[in-house]
């Protein structure tokens, strides 16, 4: 029989220095972010280990995108520390970003650049020497071989998403940040996308993603944190979060069927902030 080669997610859930003795690729400690007097994130801590898909879930305005912006070094924290592969994001932002692959919620490229030129630009920005032949090969592997001269703005949703993922991964980053990556994709494109992400995870890279799809989060994430009103209210494997909250009154009230889902738990917990799992 062929042994499975998947990572056991439970061993990732224990501590930053996990059971494999591998240091996390991303550590967020006691993060506090504010826009003027409005506090967007307060006391958020989590870590993401190699070979792990970690989901940051929360309702709109919960602080997910602000947290990602701080990890990208675009937002300075009022308090707390963020390190990417051990590099302090706010002391050495460029070195930290060199180890991040990022796909934003609304990624856009200069509308006059062709698909080929977009790859050429981002390869240069990440310091990856690619010849024209390399770029054509790369485009062929993501089924955009025929679109090399097409303007990126003329691509379909699925094609654009593959291009965006290619620009995020062409430097083989240890950590990938994906902000609602499957929004607007059809089911086929979603499935292809998650297959690629799982392949990246299985190669030992770490992935931090945000999504509004609880079904997708349950299916692909090894661990998740639910964040609401800027605070983490639950962390663990999706199944652990479901199991440890299924008997809560607010979760039962949110459940539409006897079988409690992650979405039921999410709705139940985020309607009653301050609950910890």
């Amino acid at each position, binding site marked *: 029989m062929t042994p499975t080669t998947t990572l056991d997610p439970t061993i990732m859930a224990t501590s930053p220095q996990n059971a494999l003795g591998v240091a996390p690729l991303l550590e967020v400690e006691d993060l506090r972010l504010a826009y003027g007097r409005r506090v967007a994130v307060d006391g958020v801590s989590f870590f993401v280990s190699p070979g792990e898909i970690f989901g940051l879930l929360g309702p709109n305005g919960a602080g997910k995108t602000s947290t990602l912006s701080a990890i990208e070094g*675009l937002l300075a924290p009022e308090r707390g520390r963020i390190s990417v592969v051990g590099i302090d994001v706010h002391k050495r932002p460029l070195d930290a970003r060199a180890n991040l692959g*990022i796909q*934003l919620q609304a990624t856009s490229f200069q509308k006059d650049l062709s698909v080929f030129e977009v790859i050429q630009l981002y390869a240069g920005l990440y310091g990856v020497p690619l010849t024209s032949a390399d770029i054509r090969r790369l485009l062929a592997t993501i089924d955009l071989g025929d679109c090399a001269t097409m303007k990126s703005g003329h691509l379909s949703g699925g094609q654009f998403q593959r291009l965006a993922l290619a620009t995020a991964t062409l430097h083989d980053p240890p950590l990938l940040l994906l902000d609602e990556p499957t929004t607007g994709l059809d089911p086929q494109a979603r499935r292809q996308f998650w297959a690629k992400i799982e392949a990246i995870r299985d190669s030992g890279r770490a992935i931090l993603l945000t999504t509004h799809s609880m079904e997708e989060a349950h299916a692909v994430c090894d661990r998740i944190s639910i964040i609401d009103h800027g605070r983490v209210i639950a962390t663990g494997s999706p199944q652990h979060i479901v199991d440890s909250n299924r008997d809560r009154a607010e979760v039962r009230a949110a459940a539409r069927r006897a079988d409690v889902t992650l979405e039921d738990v999410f709705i139940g917990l985020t309607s009653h902030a301050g609950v910890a799992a």
Partner: protein
Amino acid sequence: MSSTIVRPRLAPIRTAPRRAATWQALLRADFVVQWHQRRSLVMTVAVPIGFLFAWKDLIPTVGAHAVLAICIAVGLPAMGLMGYSQIIARDREKGVFQRLRTTPTSTAAIMGSRIIVQLAVMALMTLSTYAFANLIDGITIGAASLVLVVVAALVGGMAFLALGQCIVALVTSAEAVSAVGRLIYLPIAVIGGVAETGLLGPAIKQAVGWSPIGTTKELLLAAMSPDTTTLHTATALAVTLAYGIAFAAVGIRQFKWSVH
């Protein structure tokens, strides 16, 4: 089926690439974008050449060099107020800058590359206008003076780019930036340019003389005949630089990379 827990392979840790490499990538992309927009580039270069034809009859009264200087001075704000500011506003609105800022590249390089491309277009516009002036009207200036003219155009052009930066910093939506740019361009360039010819009377000519158009025209004129440089030229240079610094200070301080 037996299950094996595997130790994940660790990805190599990277450091930020060399600055030269990121500048090269940005400059190449921004020049490519400019090349793809060559129709608007032609229009930009055509503006001062159009004025050159329109004001041909003023050469005997105003002087050949003065007409050429005014035409170049009128062409420069078109790039700062309509070209540069609109591209920046559009890319900001679409999230292009947010994506670029998540790469290991400094924000100075992202914006600096765009400014360099605009300065290159200004130099091209200046040389094209001179080439037409030489062909059509037989206006000549020496090689050294031509270099000085390009430098003077770039100094004046920087002030207009800074004004464009100021607009895009203070106005959020790309549509509004476009409207404000056009609104400001009309009085600055057209009225300023016409007043510099003296057609609107000496009082207005004197007042416009200290506007960005007026001081830029003064620098261009002095560059065409360096031996006629006076204290007035030095003052015009100081005033042009002051405009640039003041606009840039507001434009950089108030600029937001994202409108979301």
